[in-house]
């Protein structure tokens, strides 16, 4: 469950430009697509929801927690345990292999490292053959699937995806979105995708345009 109210945000450097964002209310397992042109503040909104940026005003509640009332270290912990992030070109930790990346994801979110679960997830995402592969040995599609794995392995409440499909072809785009929606459902998590990619619009029942 996510509920935002009257969020506004201003970058310190950018003079007086103030972002105002529409209120968002999502029930459990409800997904949302946020569309908008570049520079409109999509990523800013996503980072606000992830607790990476602090709003100038307004509240953001995930579950029943007002995330910006938490101390920085509490917020680190909360983010680690309840939020999963997917990026456009997914970066996993370069020096670790696929399995180690997932292990570190669990380690930092203070969850038990369960290899059965890791292997299961890699199986579902068709990455079983790449357990010991370094990140830079993976193709773009494989990387994006690893990104999805990293965003859901810790069973989060919210999955936030920033342009997850914009660098993928139609086939991979479809597959990635199916996997994301599927994984969100399995984890009973809210999925919020921000994009300017209209290909994925039909997959969401709820969408807002900034």
């Amino acid at each position, binding site marked *: 469950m996510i509920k935002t109210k009257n969020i506004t945000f201003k970058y310190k450097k950018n003079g007086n430009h103030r972002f105002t964002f529409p209120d968002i209310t999502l029930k459990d397992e409800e997904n949302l697509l946020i569309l908008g042109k570049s520079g409109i503040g999509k990523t800013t909104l996503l980072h606000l929801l992830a607790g990476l940026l602090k709003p100038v005003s307004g509240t953001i509640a995930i579950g029943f927690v007002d995330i910006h009332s938490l101390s920085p270290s509490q917020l680190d912990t909360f*983010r680690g345990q309840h939020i999963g992030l997917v990026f456009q*070109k997914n970066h996993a930790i370069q020096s670790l292999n696929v399995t180690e990346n997932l292990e570190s994801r669990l380690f930092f979110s203070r969850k038990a490292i369960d290899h059965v679960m890791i292997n299961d997830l890699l199986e579902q995402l068709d990455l079983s053959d790449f357990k010991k592969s370094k990140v830079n040995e993976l193709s773009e599609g494989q990387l994006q699937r690893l990104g999805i794995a990293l965003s859901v392995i810790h069973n989060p409440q919210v999955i936030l995806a920033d342009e997850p499909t914009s660098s993928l072809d139609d086939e991979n785009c479809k597959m990635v979105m199916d996997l994301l929606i599927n994984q969100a459902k399995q984890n009973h998590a809210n999925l919020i995708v921000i994009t300017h990619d209209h290909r994925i619009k039909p997959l969401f029942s709820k969408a807002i345009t900034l």
Partner: protein
Amino acid sequence: MTIWSISIQNLRSKPFYTFLSVFSLALSIALLLGIQQVEASFKYQMENNLGDIDLVIGAKGSPLQLVLASVLHMDNPTGNIPYEDAKKVGKNPMIKSAVPISYGDNYKGYRIVGTTKGFAPLYNAALEEGRAVKKSMEVVLGHTVAKQLQLKIGDTFLSSHGLVDNDIDVHSEKLKVVGIYKPTQKIIDRLIITNLESIWDVHHTEGEHEHGDEQEGGSIEHSGNAYEGKEITSLLISFRNPSAFLTLPRKINEQTNMQAALPKYELDRLYEYMGVGVKTISCIAYIILVISCMTIFISLYKMVKEHAFDLALLRTYGASNVQLIRMVGYEGCIMGLLAFLLGILLSKTGLSLMFKMVETEYKQNMLHELPLMEFLQIGALVFIMILAAIVLAIHPIIKMNISTILSHEN
């Protein structure tokens, strides 16, 4: 999965760079350890060889030469002194023991020292087998001498005149081995000990007509025609109380025509001469140390800068700033520790190779362990430098803006 294992993986992902940083630091540590150990070994060896000798009395000349010749048995003596005069000095109540030594012969390069019963106790040397010298022309061998020359009790040999091995100027009297000392790691291991009479007897019979040769050879003159006129090379003295250090040497230097030299003082002077070289090399080693700590810093800083996205990603995984700092810190510590171990290994192998060569030349094992304090000092220095490198390198983490880094992923 721990922070340690991530640090190790980070290092392993750039093996060449890690190796270079570690190796250059190891090299400077090895150099520092090596130079300190050489210095420590040298000092230890010298001071060990002093035994209980506080003062040396000999003929006038260079005091350093007197010490080198009579205490360390390295140089030619300054000359001889009358035995009678030496005996008088020895009666001073401040003196615990006064041991006369006299020499001028060698056997295959090992010096033959004519002395009294008091000599061996100066070095805590005990007999391994056989007995002490009882009469003229009997000798007891130092441990190294017996081993190197493979001499046993009952063997006899002819000594050569002077302090350098030669086959031409050989005395006609045979010396007989009656005992062998246990190893002491001191100079006595490399000496052949006999009594004063042996030296006098050998040179008494030949002294008359070989007198001129001795002068030319630059070796010691120790001939005497009458018993009263006997001469010795020097007198080794240990004091009963420390106040003798102040009064006795001056008294001897002013009131007699002999000279008194304090071995510790003379050796300190010698170290001072040597110190310039040691200091220069130490200086170079410290500079290399600073430079290699800078490479460690660059390596860590590069990691933090180039992997900024990874670090931001870890923050989204729930890692705190402290955990990221620990990660970088562990990387620095691992490199520092590896360098330190490698440095120890390098200096140990380097030195033992070096000393193997020296050992055969000087017939003595000179390698001595570095005192723990100096070892810890170098360790602490490296640790502090690494710590400084880490503190400088983590600066970007503290100032990191995760949102900015993540939104500039392309």
